[in-house]
C-alpha cells in the first residue's frame, strides 16, 4: 500500500470515527430530554460516583492546596505579600484546580470502570440482549450515568474547593507562620462568587464529556479482553485530554464573554 493510500485510509477512518461519536453525542442529548427518567439508577450511580469518591477527591485536593500554599507563600514572602497567598490559593482552586483535579480523579476511578462495565457487557452480548428486548442501551445504561455525573462532578468540586482552601490555610498559618487573620481577610476580600461559579459550571461540562466518552468506548468494545483493555485505556486518555481542552475553551469563554 502506497504512502498516500495509507494517509487516505487513515483520514477516512478518522472521519468515520468522528461521525460515529457525533451521532452518539446527539443521541445522548436527545435521550436526556425524553422521560421517563430512571431515578433509582441515577441514585445508584450518584452514590457510586459521588459518595464513594469523596475521600479520594478530598485527599487529592487537600494535598494540592498544601503544595500550592507552600510554593506561593515562599514566593510571595520575597515581596512581603504572603498574606495574599490565601486569595491566590482560593482563586486557583475554585477556578481551575478543584474542577480539573476532581475530573482527573473521577476519570481514573469512575470513567475507567464505566468503560470496563459497559464494555464487558458488550463482549458478552448483554448489550445485544438488551436490544432484543426492545430496550435502548443508551437510555438504560448511558443516560442515568450522565445525570449522575452532572450532579456529582460539581458537588465533589465544591467539596474539593473547601478542602483545598483549608489545606492551603493549614500550611500557610500553622507551618509557614502567616498571620491567619490577614490571610483570611485578603481571601474574603479578593475571592469573588464568580470564581466559584465558573469552577462549578466547568465541573458540569467535564462530568458530561467524561461520561459520554467513557460510555461511548464501552459500547464500541469488541475483540474480547484485549479489546476491552484497549478501549478502557483510550477512554481514560481521551477523557483526560478532553477535560484539559474543554477547560481552556471554557476559561477563554468566561474571561472574554462573561467578564469573569
Amino acid at each position, binding site marked *: 500500500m502506497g504512502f498516500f493510500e495509507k494517509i487516505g485510509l487513515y483520514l477516512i477512518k478518522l472521519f468515520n470515527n468522528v461521525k460515529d461519536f457525533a451521532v452518539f453525542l446527539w443521541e445522548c442529548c436527545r435521550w436526556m430530554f425524553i422521560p421517563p427518567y430512571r431515578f433509582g439508577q441515577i441514585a445508584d450511580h450518584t452514590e457510586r460516583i459521588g459518595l464513594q469518591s469523596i475521600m479520594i477527591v478530598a485527599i487529592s485536593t487537600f494535598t494540592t492546596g498544601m503544595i500550592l500554599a507552600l510554593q506561593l507563600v515562599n514566593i510571595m514572602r520575597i515581596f512581603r505579600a504572603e498574606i495574599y497567598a490565601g486569595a491566590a490559593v482560593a482563586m486557583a482552586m475554585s477556578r481551575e484546580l478543584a474542577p480539573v483535579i476532581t475530573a482527573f480523579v473521577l476519570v481514573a476511578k469512575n470513567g475507567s470502570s464505566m468503560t470496563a462495565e459497559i464494555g464487558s*457487557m458488550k463482549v*458478552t*452480548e*448483554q448489550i*445485544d*440482549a*438488551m*436490544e*432484543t*428486548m*426492545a*430496550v*435502548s442501551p443508551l437510555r438504560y445504561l448511558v443516560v442515568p450515568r450522565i445525570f449522575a455525573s452532572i450532579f456529582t462532578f460539581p458537588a465533589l468540586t465544591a467539596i474539593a474547593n473547601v478542602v483545598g482552601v483549608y489545606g492551603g490555610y493549614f500550611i500557610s498559618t500553622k507551618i509557614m507562620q502567616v498571620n491567619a487573620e490577614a490571610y483570611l481577610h485578603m481571601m474574603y476580600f479578593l475571592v469573588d462568587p464568580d470564581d466559584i461559579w465558573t469552577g462549578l459550571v466547568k465541573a458540569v461540562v467535564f462530568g458530561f464529556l467524561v461520561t459520554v466518552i467513557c460510555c461511548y468506548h464501552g459500547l464500541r468494545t469488541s475483540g474480547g479482553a484485549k479489546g476491552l483493555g484497549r478501549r478502557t485505556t483510550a477512554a481514560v486518555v481521551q477523557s483526560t485530554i478532553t477535560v484539559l481542552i474543554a477547560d481552556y475553551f471554557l476559561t477563554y469563554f468566561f474571561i472574554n464573554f462573561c467578564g469573569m
Partner: protein
Amino acid sequence: MDNEIIKVCGVWKSFGTHEVLRGVDLSVPEGRITTIIGKSGTGKSVLLKNIIGILKPDRGEIFFEGRDLTKMKNQELLELRRSMGYLFQDAALFDFMSVEENICFPLVEQLGLRDGGELRRRVARLLELVELPGIEKKYPSELSGGMRKRVGLARAIAVEPRIVLFDEPTTGLDPILAESIDQLIIRVNRELGMTCIVISHDIASIFSFTDRLALLYDGVIEFDGTPEEAKRSDHEILRQFISNSFRQIDSER
C-alpha cells in the same frame, strides 16, 4: 401450506471486506421449528441477528408478516422486537442482576408490569417451565452453563413472543443437558405455540423434532426442506453434514 411468518430475501452482510452472507433466501413457517445448520463461522448467528434487527443487512429484505423490517423506523423495530425472543449462545444474562431481576427485565421494560406480586408469580411460573424452581435470588455467576441457558430461555419467552430464536442452545452442554434443552424447545413450540428458529450443530438430535432444515454454506442457503427431504437429498455438503454427525454418534456409542 403454512403461513410464512418470516421471509428473508437476498440478504447480504459484510464486515469490512469479509462477506458473511451472500444473498440468503429463507422462509420460516409460522408455528413450526426451523433449524439452520452450517459450519462454524458461516454466519448463522449473523443471520439470526439480522432477523431480529440488531444487525442491518447491506442488501436484501427481511419480511415479518409481509412488513419489511429493513425499512422500519427505530420505533417500529422496537415494537416488532416485542414479538420476538432471543436465546443467546452464552445466554447473555445480565451479570449484575439476580435470576429474578433478569426475568423481570422484559416484563417491566416491554410489558410495563410494575406489580411486585404479579412479577414474582410470573417469574416462578417461568422457572417452573424451565425446571429450575426456587433459584430466583441466585446470580448468573452461581449457575452452571445449562442452568444459565434455561434461565435465558425463561427470559426470552417471558413476554410470550410469537417467535423465539435459539442461537446454538445446546453447544457446550453434556448430552443429558442438551436433551433437556431440546425438550424445552419442543415444549415452547408445541405447548406455547411459538415459532422457533434454531441454530444448531447437533444434527442428530434436531432431526427428531425440527419441522424444517436449512443448510447455510458459503453465505447462501444451499438446502431448505423437511428432515425427510434432507435425508433423501443428494446434496453433497448436506450429506457430509448428516453422515458425519451420525458417524460421531455411532463412535460415541
